């Protein structure tokens, strides 16, 4: 993220309430993760210790410190999704993408394919429980998902068997 963009984001947060998390959220939304350089720049500009920013980004599950692929697939692991087979969906996706669950260095589930096309993540709950199990690809929700639906969904994003 360049300095002008970061300045623009910071300028929209005048009040202290919700400021740090709000700025970090916007960086995360824009970049798909929080780049180290952005954290360093933010630390300088707001006069907040890097350690504090690091602590925030690792404490809150919304933030990620590892770069993501072109498309981010997020599987909801909420209770309704769990009882309706979210684990199977996740396993099927791992198999399709040829990756294996692992936790990244910041302790969060996020794994990217070697060609950097896809990143697979999990979420605690989207709050779209009525259409469980649910997954999200780049902001688009797919409800009532079955293993059989997955190839067609991923194909929309350029996945090839």
């Amino acid at each position: 993220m360049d300095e002008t963009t970061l300045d623009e984001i910071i300028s929209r947060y005048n009040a202290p309430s919700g400021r740090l998390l709000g700025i970090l959220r916007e960086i995360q939304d824009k970049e798909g993760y929080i780049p180290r350089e952005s954290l360093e720049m933010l630390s300088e500009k707001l006069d907040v210790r890097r350690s504090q920013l690091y602590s925030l980004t690792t404490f809150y599950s919304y933030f990620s410190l590892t770069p993501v692929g072109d498309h981010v697939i997020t599987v909801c692991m909420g209770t309704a999704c769990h009882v309706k087979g979210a684990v199977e969906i996740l396993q099927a996706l791992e198999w399709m993408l040829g990756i294996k669950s692992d936790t990244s260095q910041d302790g969060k589930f996020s794994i990217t394919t070697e060609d950097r096309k896809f990143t697979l993540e999990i979420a605690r709950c989207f709050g779209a429980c009525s259409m469980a199990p649910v997954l999200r690809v780049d902001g688009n929700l797919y409800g009532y998902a079955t293993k059989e639906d997955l190839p067609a969904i991923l194909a929309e994003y350029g996945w090839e068997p």
Partner: protein
Amino acid sequence: MKITSAADLKSRQKIGLQKIQPGKPRIAVGFATCGIAVGGNKVYERLKVIIEKNGLDIDLTRVGCIGYCKEEPLVNITIPGKPLIILHKVTEADAEEIVRAVQKGEVPYDKALCRVPAWDHGTGCTLAYGDGFTKIPLYEKIPFFKAQKKVILRDAGLINPEDIDEYIAVGGYAAAMKALAGMDSEAIIKEVEKSGLRGRGGAGFPTGLKWRITRDAKADKKYIICNADEGDPGAYMNRNEMESDPHMLIEGMIIGAFAMGAAEGLIYIRAEYPLAIKRLKLAIEQAREYGLLGKNIFGTKFSFDIAIATGAGAFVCGESTALVASIEGRTGRPHPRPPRLTDIGGGLFGVPTDLNNVETWCNVPVIISNGSGWYSRIGVKGNTGTKVFSLVGKVDRVGLVEVPLGTSLNTIVFDIGNGGALGKKVKAVQTGGPSGGCIPVRLFDTPVDYESLNNVGSIMGSGGLVVMDEDTNMVDIARYFINFATGESCGKCVPCREGLKHSLLLLNRILAKKGTKKDLETLALLSDTIVATSLCGLGQTAPNPVLTTLAYFREEYDRLVKP
């Protein structure tokens, strides 16, 4: 244009009514997150193209969600003089037929779910639509709706949440005007106390009392906060409340701020709800434009404004002290109470702070409008009013359900939800999210109120009801929640951080069929210890899913372990 008098509000109401009942056909597409995801946006776009291409005199708009999620996408049609018709399972391909029928003053019968000749918007405002279409069943005859009572969701799915005029049309902001123009702080707090309203976030603390304590705290500055973090997996009531009727929340906060003497309010909302954030921001801007937020609200001396702070995914931030830490830009780790939020030194930036859940705030306008007497007759003694639940999991009719407190689980799961999905047998229902418990079907005559749910080892929580059927492995459910709580533990106190981790290891071993009877004893003992010694509510309640499954589904554990 600022609204400063009852006459101003009335004239806005007229403008709003013109939008809801425009004197020509209106087609409204359900446009909450899930409605959009299952194709509501495609239906809307298609309808738009058809109407524009043919230059038809039909209003097309977007509304929130009426809660019958199973039947989405939902579309409703109003034709002047005819009842409002709710269409269900609408697809893009139906758009042509819908428009063709509406042009002829008809509706597509095969898509019709029910008809609404008149709708009571609760605050002295009933909208009459008309008669006809008698072949389509009445709204109140539909089993999913029959046992429900819409108080909080009274506008959801019927008005455009992105238009303040439509909220004003159905009686919106009249309660705030009544409070600011004709009541003082004491009168409002008394009214909320007498209503019997208790915290809808799940703990059930009397709202009026919390307001009184905050108001009486001797400080120049006070904050009020709305907790919209909705971290319980399996719960989405608050999302729909904000997406479908954001002004109801804002109006509740205006009344509360006036009663407690706060000039600033915050809505702490999870980042995972982009549509709710967008609609709240829009609603706040519109309210400012009308002089309902900002300086001199309704032309009175009272000034108050609301800002939005986003959460970033930490379940523990539902705990009040952690939530405040998060807004201040720190990690959400609870501290021991006192000091409580309402104390000097305990709240946001050390200022006395009142914190209420979205749904609690949403209850306020109707209490002020209709009076505490009206409100306290809903529900049962000590548990007044309604509660919205998200009925999900392995139940046939999934959706958002609003019932008077004291309604039995049987009514909710079987009468409204129609029992198990795909004809399977219901085994249990999980209430209260990770802090709650699993209640077996034989206890489904339990009334849903704060105390009765506690008595069976669970909690009310924020309103998630996840149904489990005969195929659900209850030990796996216990592990699911302990895994969740382990990941969400803030790590500050040992019982929660270490105790949950070891509970998880034990459950993993049991599920791998390597456990022994001794492990079950250890698990029970460890759970009791975590309950007794954890610092905050998250730790103290985290073992509930284990304790309830051990109590009610012991045989499932026994089958997995060696003697």
